């Protein structure tokens, strides 16, 4: 078949049919694999996730919420899908799993609701870690993954950076970075410089984020994370930023090296105390109804955008003051 004819036929087929066509013969496989992504139909999946454990699990959810699980077993050297197991003979399971993911992403045009990459590197026979394999695959497809939520589980900045820069910053709304161990300390200097970090609306990073400053999180409408330490200057910087940001929702962080912060009451006035918590309230720029609340207890700080009605009786609300 001439190339233009094949392209036209593929244009009229759905994702599944093109995958079937790919299996017809080597010529079709090569043709489809070399075809520009824009000429392929949209697979239209809503969620994609890959997890490395004893086996590799590739999970896909379609727009009708139907889940598809592919299991790649190193012990059996096989791939299972829908009750059908295929022996991979002399192929490496990790290579096959990454190749399958590449194929799925090649067909993904619409924006995914969620992408989940669990890089908890299990000792596989393949010498290079899973994060390196995925990073190579993303470089090869040379296209940003359109996803609203991006969840990455890793034990290093390298692991996070093997995925994060390949997501489309224009569609990315929420970045959720998980450690493999909550006590982990992870350098953030490269991560916070990415366009994806700077353009995201909400970010959670539930580990001790080293080299991350309050300036790196003040643009976010939602943040949750752990920082090594925080000063009154940092808290006041965040207060000043949040009272002028109409999109702000919450920012919650725990501090590892807890020291009582001096000078808060001198500048912000006395706190309102309830149970174990101390509260301060501040008026927001150009709003009579919205209030910025700061709730603090030992090493935990939570800034929240709340309604005026939610301020408890007896608590003072500071006038709007950006200085």
């Amino acid at each position: 078949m001439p190339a233009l004819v094949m392209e036209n036929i593929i244009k009229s087929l759905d994702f599944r049919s093109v995958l079937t066509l790919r299996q017809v013969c080597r010529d079709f496989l090569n043709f489809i694999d070399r075809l520009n992504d824009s000429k392929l139909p949209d697979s239209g999946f809503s969620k994609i996730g890959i997890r490395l454990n004893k086996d590799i699990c590739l999970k896909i959810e379609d727009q009708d919420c139907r889940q598809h699980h592919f299991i790649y077993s190193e012990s059996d050297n096989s791939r299972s899908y829908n009750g059908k197991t295929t022996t991979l003979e002399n192929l490496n399971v990790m290579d096959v799993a990454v190749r399958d993911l590449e194929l799925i992403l090649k067909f993904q045009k619409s924006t995914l609701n969620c992408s989940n990459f669990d890089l908890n590197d299990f000792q596989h026979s393949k010498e290079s870690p899973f994060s390196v394999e995925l990073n190579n695959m993303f470089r090869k497809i040379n296209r940003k993954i359109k996803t609203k939520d991006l969840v990455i589980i890793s034990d290093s900045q390298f692991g996070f950076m093997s995925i994060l820069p390949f997501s489309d910053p224009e569609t990315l709304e929420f970045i959720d970075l998980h450690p493999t161990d909550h006590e982990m300390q992870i350098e953030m200097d490269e991560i916070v410089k990415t366009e994806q970090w700077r353009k995201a609306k909400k970010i959670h990073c539930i580990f001790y984020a080293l080299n991350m400053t309050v300036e790196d999180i003040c643009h976010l409408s939602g943040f949750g994370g752990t920082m090594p330490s925080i000063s009154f200057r940092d808290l006041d910087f965040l207060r000043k930023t949040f009272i002028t940001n109409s999109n702000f929702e919450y920012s919650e962080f725990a501090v590892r090296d807890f020291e009582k912060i001096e000078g808060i009451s001198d500048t912000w006035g006395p706190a309102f105390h309830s149970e174990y918590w101390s509260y301060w309230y501040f008026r927001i720029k150009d709003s009579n109804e919205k209030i910025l609340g700061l709730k603090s207890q030992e090493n935990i700080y939570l800034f929240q955008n709340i309604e005026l009605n939610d301020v408890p009786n007896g608590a003072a609300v500071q006038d709007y003051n950006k200085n």
Partner: protein
Amino acid sequence: MSSTEQGTSSAAPAEPTTAPESAAAPEVPESFYYVHGKDKVVHKVSAGALQHSALIHGMISNLGYTEEQAKANPFPFENIDGDILQMVVDWCNQHKGKPTPPEDTNLPKQKEKLFDLVLAVNYLEIKELLTYCCKQVAMMVKGKSPEEIREIWMIPTDAEDEAAEKEAKKRAGKEAAGETAAAAGDAK
């Protein structure tokens, strides 16, 4: 050589029908061109209908033929079967100067005919008709297994393909050896 004019056969290329003269604005007489396929049957087609084919349209623009020259030099498409070219000509006539509909249900149902039509239309660069034909071919393979598609499209398996390739190479090698031997014999 025989010819047809919009599906009607005649012994020689027919003269173009002249449009009745209008008192308000004199119409420019339509120009006609002639094409034939493998069967040498000549089809008279208006320039308007041929606009669908980017290939023929390009040839016409470059040649600047007069009516007489066009009649004397029909475009030869030896690689297209006569009945397939007839289908193409009919389609171009039916859709002359009209916007093409989103679907075309008058395409051949027989797969061999459809595949020949696809190849002809691709060669003649008739974009809309190619889209319809490819849609129909796509419908044939939707929901089918790789084995069924191979059967529908008459595609050999990779193993069969490799075997045929080996056989062809072997044959070519033998022929080349034969030719060399013959040449050596001649030289002696």
